[in-house]
């Protein structure tokens, strides 16, 4: 998916969220969403297809946070730390973009959609220096994606939408 397509999707989502469909206009300002550093696409494997993540990532994260903290379930699929390890934007000075800067993956869309999140008031907004995944080869989901039985494997969007809760 190109940045342009992604932007259009975000505009659409923002329009629905704000109940201002008039904004969903190609002539309006576009949200520039940086590509994940590692190739997080179905082939190399974000944990769910992009369309599903765009719509349901907040539900997945919400369920996962309670499962992890309160029940001790430590699967990696919706771990915020694992998200941050892939969705990073290096800056020219060698640092990574922080939440609040427009290059940060989460900021880019959330600023545009005016949806305030407080994840990064406690959680680290940049990757663990030892766990940065610069290439698809380092992407942990890549191995999983090869296995079609694993949720990270290629699966139709219809199979995942709406099963977050």
């Amino acid at each position, binding site marked *: 998916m190109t940045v342009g397509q992604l932007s259009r999707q975000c505009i659409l989502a923002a329009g629905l969220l704000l109940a201002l469909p008039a904004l969903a206009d190609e002539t309006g300002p576009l949200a520039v969403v940086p590509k994940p550093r590692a190739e997080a696409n179905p082939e190399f494997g974000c944990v769910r297809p992009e369309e599903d993540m765009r719509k349901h990532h907040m539900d997945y994260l919400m369920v996962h*946070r*309670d*499962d992890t*903290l*309160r*029940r*001790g*379930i*430590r*699967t*990696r699929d919706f771990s915020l*730390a694992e998200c941050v390890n892939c969705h990073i934007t290096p800056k020219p000075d060698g640092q990574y973009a*922080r939440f609040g800067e427009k290059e940060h993956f989460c900021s880019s869309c959330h600023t545009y959609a005016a949806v305030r999140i407080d994840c990064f*008031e*406690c*959680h*680290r*907004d*940049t990757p*663990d220096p030892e*766990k940065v995944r610069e290439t698809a080869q380092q992407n942990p989901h890549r191995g999983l994606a090869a296995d079609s039985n694993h949720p990270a494997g290629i699966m139709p969007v219809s199979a995942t939408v709406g099963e977050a809760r």
Partner: protein
Amino acid sequence: MDKKSNQTDQARRRFFGQVAAVASLTVAPGVILQQVAHARSPEEPASDKNRWGILINTNKCAEGCDACVTACQDEYGWGPNGPETRSSDLQKAQWIRKVKLTDKQTGHVQTLPLMCQHCEHPPCVDVCPTGASMKRADGIVLVDKHICIGCRYCMMACPYKARSFIHEELHDQKVNAPRGKGTVESCTLCVQRVDAGRQPACVEACPEQAMIFGDLKDPESAISRELRENGGEQIRADLGLNTGIRYQGL
């Protein structure tokens, strides 16, 4: 090789085979128990089949040594080198502290590490208005910062003064320790290490091996054996909290 020696050889082989079988049986239960107690698959939730605890031998705890405290600071990013720059020393986080006890009559000095005691009946959980202060199935007492409103009732309720409050905005937290302004925190018994079958950082760091970490519900664990043989006290046992952290030599 004649027939007789061949038979002897076979008999010897059978004998050694049996010995090996018995040996593996006697070794195996300990090994397997250890694995059950310490390794859990990521999908599996914490269970009340375990109750984690630490036994601290204060006789081995050296005065002036703070290896456990610095190990905790390094692991979770609090303390003098932590990200809190505008908080006073009294305000700064203190997940674990060294306490010095002096017997005024004899002059005998003891030191011990004091942290969240991971009570079976935690007063902090009793008083929490939102359910943020919580006890996991395996007895680890935690703060769910997602729903903590920062009222600090738990800090007042804790008889061990084990909790602290974050007074300022923080950045560059450790991945394992999300910390943020307006929430209470305390020792987590290194919950993410325990879930991965490892020991808490303080236990690992102690140069005197004064701390034993283990499952209080497993009668064969090192901590249970030691408690059974040599006993261990709770601090403020009179409160009836049944703490997971026990001390010897108090």
